[in-house]
């Protein structure tokens, strides 16, 4: 071979080999990490807990005082949307109780002016997903299944990922999520403790549960 130069890999490029091997070997770990990150609660915004205009405590009202969910969210059995109560609902009691509490200042001024309190929505579904509260609540899916132990929350946060996969989880296996309608708002009641699997399966046929997995069930 004449002294014509030709490009071969220089000797130092051998030092790159271990890095290439390590990079190749860690690819599966990297892929697993990416998937885990995509599905992680942080990415899905789990635990979203906005500051509300009034420091209303579900833990106090529901947990300690035993208010039923439906006292305030009164449309939940009849409509797709669980209503956020008007100020008047608060004032049913607070004209009598804690009348001068500074924490209720905004409630009182809203009551006087007639202007709504701007509560911040915690459980927000996208517009293209159709969800009906009444269809679930009247057929044995308790509040706690999706909203968690609201009776223990000082400030409400997002308990569930609200991702499509999470919806499907229940639609594919409704049995373990069903309870008698009488216990629907009883957040402390655990059907896995109180009921046998057979009883839950019986509920499924009692309420005619055959959850659909069609696209058009939720995307209408």
């Amino acid at each position, binding site marked *: 071979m004449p002294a014509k130069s030709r*490009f*071969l890999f220089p000797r130092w490029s051998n030092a790159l080999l271990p890095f290439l091997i390590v990079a190749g070997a860690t690819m599966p770990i990297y892929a697993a990490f990416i998937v885990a990150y995509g599905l992680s609660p942080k990415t899905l915004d789990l635990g979203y807990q906005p500051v509300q205009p009034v420091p209303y405590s579900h833990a106090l009202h529901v947990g300690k005082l035993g208010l039923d969910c439906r006292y305030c969210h009164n449309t939940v059995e009849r409509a797709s949307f669980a209503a956020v109560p008007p100020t008047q609902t608060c004032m049913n009691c607070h004209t009598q109780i804690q009348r001068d509490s500074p924490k209720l200042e905004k409630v009182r001024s809203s009551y006087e002016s007639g202007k709504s309190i701007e509560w911040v929505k915690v459980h927000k579904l996208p517009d293209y997903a159709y969800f009906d509260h009444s269809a679930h609540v009247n057929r044995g899916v308790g509040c706690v299944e999706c909203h968690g132990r609201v009776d223990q929350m000082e400030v409400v946060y997002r308990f569930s990922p609200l*991702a*499509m*996969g999470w919806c*499907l989880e229940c639609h594919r296996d409704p049995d373990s999520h069903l309870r008698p309608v009488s216990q629907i708002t009883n957040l402390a009641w655990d059907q896995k403790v109180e009921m046998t699997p057979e009883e839950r399966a019986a509920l499924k046929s009692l309420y005619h549960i055959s959850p659909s997995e069609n696209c058009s069930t939720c995307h209408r």
Partner: protein
Amino acid sequence: MKIMSNSSSNSMRGFIDTDNTEQPVGTRVPLVLHMKSFGEVTHQVCRVAETKPPLAWYVAFAVSLSMLAFLGFCVTYLIFTGVGVWGLNNPVMWAYDITNFVFWVGIGHAGTLISAILFLFRQKWRTGINRFAEAMTIFAVICAGLFPGIHIGRVWLAYWLFPIPNSMDMWPQFRSPLLWDVFAVGTYFTVSLVFWYIGMIPDLATLRDRATGKFQQFAYGLASIGWRGSMRHWHRYEVAYLLLAALATPLVLSVHSVVSFDFAVSQLPGWHSTIFPPYFVAGAIFSGFAMVVSLAVPARQLFGLKDLITLRHLDNMNKIILVTGCMVGYAYSMEFFIAWYSGALYEKFAFINRAFGQYWWAYWIMVSCNVITPQLFWFKAIRISVPLMFVLSIFVNVGMWFERFVIIVTSLANDFLPSSWDQFVPTWVDIGTMVGAFGLFGTCFLLFCRYLPMIAIAEVKAVMPQANPHPHHDHAHDPHDPQGAGAAGVKR
């Protein structure tokens, strides 16, 4: 002719045809003509990448690039507006898009057949054409891959074609051939690309060693990943090549079979047919070889490669076109026979409608191009006439495009329910996308011709008489004999 080419000057070498199709009994006509040494072969192939291409290359490249730009425009317009810019309507939900997809996937099959099956069968003539047939395969699959990607409407969700874990718990339908297709075409592309690249490494190293520019040395050097031509390199190369050939062989049959399932698995008359897999594979090889001829004829002319891609190579390919053309013709007639023999009313209607309905012209273009045209290759004079085979191969390409159009559109346009029948009329975007895909293909192919070794230099050398130390008894030798023609070392 022979005398003329022998006496002509060196510069004319490779630009004149020599008839090497006659093979007297007991002799072997060389597949490489007028080459006295291995070095001459190297020079003939490498000079294409080392010198300025002929004017025709620039013209063709400008045309291809303009068509590619128009493709970009059509696809952008489609993405920003929606699939409504195509002429699709309610019964005809697939038309030009899937026609083009199947057409381009089919084109690729010749490359795989040449590189894998002909390799395993020790067909030595494959060495002259395998490199650019494989390149053709890769570019054709790129063109094919474009269409499913853009026909889905919401292009930004194209990744839904793949089973990727996601928070929606949503997966492709694993029972659908459309998903099998994603895997089939994906595997096909990967294996073809690896095969093509591995086969090219020794030749890239040759280009590197001959390169004079610093950049060329570096680029070819990087691409040839440190190839030095040592005996160990050649040994591993040969083993890898053989293994890849074995891996690629089932793909020749599987890919277009799976593509045919897209139709055959559905219930539509005209699609729902068990003959589809073999019929599609034969058609794919048919169209693929026609495309190889369409590309080889101008390429060998322009770059002076007539001593390497000889008339014998072209003659062989035309014979394959004839054989597969007969298979395709048989499949067409068998479809009609079954439509009658099955007694299925809708099936019968679908085929009568295909030949005499609203798209009768498309059907008869298909039959003329695919059944009648290849029959001319029974005549040797036509098989070795370069201008005629070029024209006929174009006819076959046209016919095979129409075959897919006929299968897809006529079956959809007149299905079970007469009240929903409709006609498909292509829009300018349909036609622009189809033409543009040819621009994409042409651009890739012309760049390949310009910058990469168009012919497998190392492999061609192995079929030259000089590579065989015992030329007079070569049939008595075991090809695996380390002293014989199979030894890798003699290639360089």
